[in-house]
């Protein structure tokens, strides 16, 4: 029986095709916006989680406080090899590696650029490699014994530095020649993909940074509690650096903490964007209400006729509610399709032109079904007042209406 009412409503919508579509467009836009935003934030969450999965849950990061400008920027405090030695001796620590960064002028074939250079400790570089999930696309990764050799990000393979760089090419870094031993697989964002890595032994004299360590990565033994070890690192460092317990100059990060802080930022962004989408939805809903009011007015006589042939108030209410619900539903069907199209296009554009795989969209079925239901609900809610008014029309008055 209810399907007959749906058919009736569809016929009515088709009758006023242009106006129906104009109303539907309002819903399409808002549902598409909401759909894109949610699928983007779901995709980002997935991407972030994937990054952390690669990172592993057994690593602790120690950095000096106040590295506001990111690693490599001059900060008043710094960690040194001494701190690394302290951490290495702590019970439950399996391995420790560290790196230092600096900006350098690089030159190849008269083309000059300024990029960040990372100096890595080759004795423990396997932990560094594991942490960043680095893989060589061409050549090989740096290994112990390399001297005046570098590995470079994937962007150098393109024309980032004039012409494409090949394995064996020489790049001048702060005027010193370095041989390219490896080109890395793309990481997904342009900054990471244009980094250059060199042995710390070469890095220190070249940049005249004899002591400083920017990030220490400590891997714990399997089965140990990461939080326990992280607090014993804190204690030991406070001791060895003779600091006040409440005024430390370093921070310790565990993957979980990183994940949490990412997650909350994501939620804030999503909520903000969803708020904007909500406003557009409000506009769309007003459009439905407006269309339904007009429709009730136009069809006053028809409502009178239907009542004369036995329609109860509830029948009329259902007819109009379904009609407005269908506007919402159709709007969300098209909106979802449009949203998928936009999402996929952004994804494609991001990979193709921005070199990043971080912008990813996720379309789980619960999101699609949720959007469909939501659209239908918005339609019926915004149509409820006009529908109620239609159902309450007095039959004689409605019949007299011209």
């Amino acid at each position, binding site marked *: *029986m209810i399907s*007959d009412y749906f058919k*009736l409503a569809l*016929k*009515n919508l*088709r*009758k006023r095709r242009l106006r129906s579509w104009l109303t539907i467009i309002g819903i399409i836009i808002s549902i598409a916006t909401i759909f894109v935003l949610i699928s983007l934030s779901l995709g980002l969450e997935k991407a972030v989680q994937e990054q952390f999965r690669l990172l592993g849950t057994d690593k602790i990061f120690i950095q000096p406080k106040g590295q506001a400008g990111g690693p490599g920027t001059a900060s008043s405090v710094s960690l040194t090899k001494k701190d690394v030695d302290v951490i290495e001796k702590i019970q439950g620590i399996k391995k420790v590696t560290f790196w230092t960064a600096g900006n350098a002028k690089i030159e190849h074939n008269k083309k000059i650029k300024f990029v960040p250079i990372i100096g890595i400790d080759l004795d423990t570089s396997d932990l560094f490699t594991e942490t960043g999930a680095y893989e060589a696309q061409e050549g090989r990764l740096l290994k112990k014994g390399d001297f005046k050799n570098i590995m470079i990000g994937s962007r150098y393979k393109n024309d980032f530095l004039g012409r494409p760089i090949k394995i064996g090419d020489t790049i001048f870094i702060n005027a010193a020649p370095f041989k390219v031993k490896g080109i890395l697989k793309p990481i997904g964002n342009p900054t990471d993909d244009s980094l250059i890595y060199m042995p710390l032994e070469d890095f220190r004299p070249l940049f005249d940074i004899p002591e400083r360590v920017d990030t220490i990565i400590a891997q714990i033994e399997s089965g140990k509690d990461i939080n326990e070890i992280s607090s014993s690192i804190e204690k030991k460092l406070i001791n060895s650096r003779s600091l006040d317990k409440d005024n430390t100059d370093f921070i310790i990060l565990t993957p979980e903490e990183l994940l949490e802080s990412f997650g909350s930022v994501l939620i804030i962004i999503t909520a903000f964007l969803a708020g904007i989408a909500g406003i557009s939805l409000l506009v769309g809903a007003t459009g439905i209400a407006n269309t339904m009011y007009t429709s009730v007015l136009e069809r006053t*006589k*028809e409502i009178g*006729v*239907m*009542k*004369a*042939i*036995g*329609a*109860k*108030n*509830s*029948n009329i209410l259902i007819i109009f509610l379904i009609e407005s619900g269908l506007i919402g539903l159709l709007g969300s069907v098209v909106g979802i399709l449009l949203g998928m199209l936009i999402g996929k296009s952004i994804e494609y554009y991001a990979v193709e032109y921005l070199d990043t795989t971080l912008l990813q969209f996720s379309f789980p079925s619960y999101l699609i079904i949720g959007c469909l239901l939501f659209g239908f609900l918005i339609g019926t809610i915004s149509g409820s007042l006009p529908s109620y008014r239609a159902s309450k029309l*007095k*039959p*004689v008055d409605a*019949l007299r209406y011209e």
Partner: protein
Amino acid sequence: MSEQIIKLKDVCKIYQMGETEVKALYNVSIDIEKGDFVAIMGPSGSGKSTGLNLVGSLDLPTLGNIYLDSQDISHLTESELAQIRGQKIGFIFQQFNLIPNLTAKENVMLPLLFQGIDKEERESRAEELLNLVELQDRMEHYPNQLSGGQQQRVAIARALANNPEVILADEPTGNLDTKTGEKVLEFLNKLNEKGTTIIMVTHDQDLAKEHAKTIYSLKDGSLEGVYKRTGKSWKKL
């Protein structure tokens, strides 16, 4: 003496228009027998439509009582009235009033839908009725693809959908030429012969005299005269 189907007792319908009262109907009492063919006549504004709408439970009287099948319908709720309209009464209007975006068949099926009858039965009943009004080859036509006379016949079929006891027709031939109007009246006559009570508002005295059995004449909201047919001659009561 045959069975009474409709009874109006001291019925008033008064509209308050600001300061003034419009007495659309005033103290009207009428008894209509089952199987009668009633014509209601009178000048414009005399209250014909008002009376018909009251009988059709589209409206409630200001004062007085209306009985349909001995049931007082003057104080019913809207949903009870809807029930009565759907089951006992069939309406035919001057402007046909078909639903424009439904086909002839769908229009006839609509009153059955409101009674919760399932689709198969609705379809076969609609086809049967359109057959009856000789529109079996116009079932899938939309109202704007039908002539006025055809539309009115669809409207008759629709009015008959739920097997009503009473057919109410407000100037059913008002928008039709004489010949087409005759055809519509023929159908009403046929129905009447099968026992359906018919109440028709009309301006056309010849039409009324030819087809009706009883004529009520209204003037300024009051009953002015009742005429009964015996054979070919009419007698004022």
